[in-house]
């Protein structure tokens, strides 16, 4: 978004008003105002989400599906309505393409266990990039070791973007049947060019899986425009509860996928000899689902929609630009990654100061950042570091908080000088 549209979006968004929606932002930490810059790990929850979950438990709860009584009917309706909300949120063609899981990690594992072991043959290859979260690497290693598929790595450039030459090479022999790639790096903040990657994969007879765990929070996603075969994300990073994640897959792919877990709700009929499976999405949701959390996710999507992703994106772009400028000026501090298209995830290292010390010392000033390998160990190797500190921005992040971070980092530098 640029120019006029962006300023309109910005004007209509009042961060101070939005902060009022998040009770936790009033908390003190070590006697200091909480400056929460770890939303990329998990976001805080607005009142609307908390209230929606309380409401279910206080006034409208029973197990879903097949309860022939009022509480069950109402709860089932509320639960299934969220499927529609999620479908609309990512512009899926049908709500039957939305499978509820625990988190993005389970979504990817589900694909690896079911589609991976049925649609892929030993010798077929899965390609991932150098900047994947372990959630989009380890399941493919496990598939490799159990099923005989190959795992290939697409390189990134020094700026932290997909290296298309490497991509060409990885696909050259025609063995790659799945490109599984992050839509936004949780370390470098890089957005990957999803539509271009999808076209690239499809032209070569491969499917594409996008790990939208980070991307979904910051920009509007349109799975049909991207032409994604699979898209996954978690509720808890999208201001929703823990315990609920999403797997989107095209209907015809889901239809052909065998089930993942067996149990109640995922069957059509059961005899000792043979069970037949329910249609998607139910085939993939065995047992009592995360009812309360799903309804909480629905409230989170309503909340984000009410503010509007364009407004959120504009606000976060402003924050990111400010942060890159401010932190970029600090002596001895190095920001990792400088992709053209990037969002509010900033990793950095400081000369002579370990990332863990940065995190603990910032914490004493009330500032929460993450430090470590961010579940992306191989990427650390690529970047030549063992760990980084990372600040991530949310809709409730302010310019003042970024200034506080900069000041805090300066102080740390003095301590270790």
């Amino acid at each position, binding site marked *: 978004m640029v120019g006029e549209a962006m300023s309109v979006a910005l004007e209509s968004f009042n961060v101070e008003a939005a902060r009022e929606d998040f009770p936790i932002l009033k908390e003190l930490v070590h006697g200091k105002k909480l400056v929460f810059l770890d939303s990329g790990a998990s976001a805080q929850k607005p009142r609307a989400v908390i209230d929606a979950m309380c409401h279910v438990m206080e006034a409208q709860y029973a197990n879903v*599906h*097949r309860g*022939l009584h009022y509480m*069950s009917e109402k709860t*089932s309706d509320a639960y299934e309505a969220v499927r529609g909300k999620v479908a609309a949120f990512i512009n899926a063609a049908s709500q039957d393409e939305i499978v509820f899981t625990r988190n993005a990690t389970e979504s990817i594992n589900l694909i690896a266990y079911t589609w991976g072991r049925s649609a892929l043959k030993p010798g077929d290859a899965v390609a991932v990039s150098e900047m994947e979260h372990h959630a989009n690497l380890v399941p493919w290693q496990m598939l490799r070791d159990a099923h005989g598929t190959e795992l290939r790595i697409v390189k990134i450039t020094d700026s932290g973007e997909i290296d298309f030459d490497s991509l060409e090479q990885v696909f050259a022999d025609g063995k790659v049947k799945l490109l599984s790639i992050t839509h936004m790096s949780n370390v470098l903040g890089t957005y990957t060019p999803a539509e271009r990657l999808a076209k690239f994969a499809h032209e070569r007879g491969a499917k594409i899986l996008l790990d939208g765990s980070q991307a979904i929070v910051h920009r509007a996603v349109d799975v049909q425009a991207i032409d994604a075969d699979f898209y996954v994300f978690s509720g808890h990073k999208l201001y929703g509860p823990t315990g609920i994640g999403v797997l989107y897959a095209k209907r015809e792919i889901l239809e052909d996928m065998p089930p993942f877990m067996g149990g109640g709700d995922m069957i059509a009929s059961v005899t000792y000899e043979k069970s037949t499976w329910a249609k998607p999405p139910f085939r993939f949701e065995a047992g009592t689902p995360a009812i309360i959390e799903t309804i909480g996710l629905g409230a989170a999507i309503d909340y984000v929609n009410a503010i509007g992703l364009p407004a959120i994106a504009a606000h976060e772009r402003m924050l990111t630009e400010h942060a890159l400028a401010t932190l970029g000026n600090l002596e001895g501090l190095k920001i990792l990654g400088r992709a053209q298209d990037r969002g509010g995830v900033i990793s950095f290292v400081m000369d002579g100061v370990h990332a863990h010390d940065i995190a603990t010392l910032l914490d004493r000033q009330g500032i929460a950042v993450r430090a470590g390998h961010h579940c992306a160990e191989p990427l650390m190797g690529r970047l030549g570091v063992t760990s980084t500190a990372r600040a991530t921005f949310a809709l409730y992040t302010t310019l003042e908080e970024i200034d506080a971070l900069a000041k805090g980092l300066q102080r740390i530098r003095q301590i270790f000088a």
Partner: protein
Amino acid sequence: MSNPYQALIVERHKHPLHAGRPTQFDAQGQGANPICGDAVRVYVSRAGMDVHYEAEGCAIMNASADLMADAVEGKTPEQVERLHRDFEKLVTTGEENHELGELNALAGLAGYSSRIRCATLPWSALAEALHHV
């Protein structure tokens, strides 16, 4: 939600008018809901749309099958298709439709989404039968 067990429903469940397998028919179709064990088989005679059925299930399904057999008598396949559509709308929205006559007795189902399939199962079976005619 209004009462899905109107007197007419209970009456037709207890004393059906079109139940039983006819000696002659042109096509049949069936429906089953393994979740509750509901099962229905619908028999169609081409001559002027004459419908019978065998049902093993709840009162809603039994009565729905019987009222359906009433409603489609003498209709063309196109008219039946139209009725089927209108009936689905009736049981999902609860909005009565005077063209549906006695079928409106099932409007009370609308609040019970898990029971709607009981009412529509005979209609799916009929559609299957007509497909075979």
